[in-house]
């Protein structure tokens, strides 16, 4: 439910938008955002889920004052993104996954100091903060190493650390764990969670990883083709499809055409992924009831596939996503 709080004398939301829209005219007209209404209170870890081109990055860039909206309004702590960009920039920062910013000739510690200088942080605090955050993200042994010698994962950790060098009140994390290994991603997730809890800061996170959103976010919005399809607590979103059955099926098969499974009566949604290395197809079915199962197994055996595993599972955000968007993130 959208509640209008625009007056500074009221409790000001960290981030709010009202019918926010953005159309790009280059090279042809593309509607990137349509009538987006959001209200994110201070201290919330808010997730934005959507496929490529859904409008997540455009929304972040408008909120970070890099783009102007073509319609609607957006505020950061009550400040208008189109007119009060200088005040907004003092309290925000952003991190994008796969970012290649910085200068290869500088060391990791110098890079963090450099970006702190853009926010007027004193040298003493900048270096102190750099040392602390390098320890958190596991870069302390690389403090004196030049950036061009870092692996891509290390660079991503550095980019992540950079975003916290000005101790922002609001941080925009655009797929921050992209390209990181499991352990590093877990460490960063733990840090984000603790940072929000300890400091009362606000995070707007976009991610492709449903598990990440599920684990981290207080609330999640699902966005597709520039529109917010649903916005709620993860538990409430999952309740939307609680009455339906979810089956996961793994097949060993060389076949790639499975349209007939999708069209079976009783199959509400279906997504699949292919592990080419292992030759295993993983299906996830959202079924109105258990009746289509017989037909699913029949199709699988008729096509000469071998069943590797069958599992009934609880709905997760991926299922909610498939229900709302009509396809999985990896489809």
């Amino acid at each position, binding site marked *: 439910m959208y509640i209008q709080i625009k007056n500074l004398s009221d409790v000001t939301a960290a981030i709010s938008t009202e019918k926010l829209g*953005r159309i*790009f*005219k*280059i090279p042809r007209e593309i509607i990137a955002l349509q009538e987006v209404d959001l209200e994110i209170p201070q201290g919330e870890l808010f997730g934005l889920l959507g496929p490529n081109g859904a409008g997540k990055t*455009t929304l972040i*860039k408008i909120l*970070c*004052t*890099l*783009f*102007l909206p073509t319609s609607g309004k957006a505020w950061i702590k009550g400040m208008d993104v189109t007119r009060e960009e*200088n*005040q907004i*920039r*003092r309290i*925000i*920062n*952003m991190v*994008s996954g796969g*970012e*290649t*910013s*910085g*200068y290869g*000739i*500088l060391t990791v510690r*110098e890079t963090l*100091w*450099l*970006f702190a*200088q*853009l*926010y*007027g*942080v004193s040298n003493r605090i900048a270096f102190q903060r750099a040392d602390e955050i390098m320890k958190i993200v596991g870069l302390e042994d690389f403090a004196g190493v030049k950036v061009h010698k870092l692996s891509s994962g290390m660079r991503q950790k550095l980019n992540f650390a*950079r975003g916290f060098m000005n101790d922002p009140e609001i941080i925009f994390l655009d797929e921050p764990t992209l390209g990181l290994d499991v352990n590093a991603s877990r460490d960063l997730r733990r840090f984000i969670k603790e940072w929000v809890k300890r400091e009362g800061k606000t995070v707007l996170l976009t991610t492709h990883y449903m598990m990440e959103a599920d684990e981290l976010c207080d609330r999640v919005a699902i966005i597709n083709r520039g529109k917010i399809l649903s916005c709620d607590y993860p538990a409430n979103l999952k309740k939307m499809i609680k009455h339906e059955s979810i089956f996961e099926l793994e097949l060993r098969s060389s076949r790639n055409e499975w349209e007939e499974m999708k069209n079976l009566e009783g199959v509400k949604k279906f997504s699949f992924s292919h592990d080419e290395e292992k030759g295993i197809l993983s299906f996830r079915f959202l079924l109105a009831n258990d009746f289509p199962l017989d037909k699913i197994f029949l199709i699988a055996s008729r096509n000469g596939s071998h069943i590797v595993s069958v599992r009934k599972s609880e709905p997760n955000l991926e299922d909610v996503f498939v229900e709302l968007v009509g396809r999985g993130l990896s489809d």
Partner: protein
Amino acid sequence: MNWQDLETNFRAALARAYVRVVGANRELSWILFDIFLPIISVAAYVYIYRSLNARQELIGYVILGGAMVAFWYNVLWSMASQFYWEKETGNLELFLVAPISRMSILAGMAIGGIYTTMIRAGAAFIVGSWIFAVPFHVSSWWLLILIFILTMTSLYGLGMMGSSLYFLYGREAWHTSSLFQEPVTLLSGFYFPVKSLGFYVSAFASLIPITLGLDGMRQIMYGTSFFSFLPLSAEMIILAVLSVFFIMLARRALNVMERLGRREGRLTLRWQ
């Protein structure tokens, strides 16, 4: 702008200058590329002048011009076009999200660029003067420093103006820089007295700050002669006016182009 903003911008400028200075110290290949290689191109002009039995001061003009050309290339490729690379690497986005004036980042590039280029140009000038045995006599160090500062301020102001193009364009703006390189090198008279282009062409060329700066420096180092274009005092006044004009225009251009870039959604658009 309050004191806190001023301090933030000052820190940002120094931090950006630091990258340039540290970069030069950590990549010592510049000693070969920026001192000895330019002397080779200068040598070609020196031998032409010598074969024509030209006056010694003309050879001095070439050596000074050959050293000063480094500033023009620095402004063109490491200042005006630097935002192209900053955009491609993602740094520009981070500069724009920070609460600083874009001028402070450019000022940082300019300070770092002037510092490193000054060492290179100075070294190239001294080595060139020694190799070709061309004496010079500085009539006033104060005037030389003043005209150098005025030249650099207006030249780097011009560079700042050029960098604003990258808020909206990418490769197109890069091509514009390429387009300017050789005509400006010719019109500024790096390897000959600009006066030989005739009054009207020289007057037009004086819109490029290094033209008058170079002519003035030559007058201070090799004496005023038939080859000097305008009186030194006039050149200094024009350079002072150009400094203010280009800096103000750069500030305006940066604001306008940033607004346009935000509106068009091309401010941080890469690979364009």
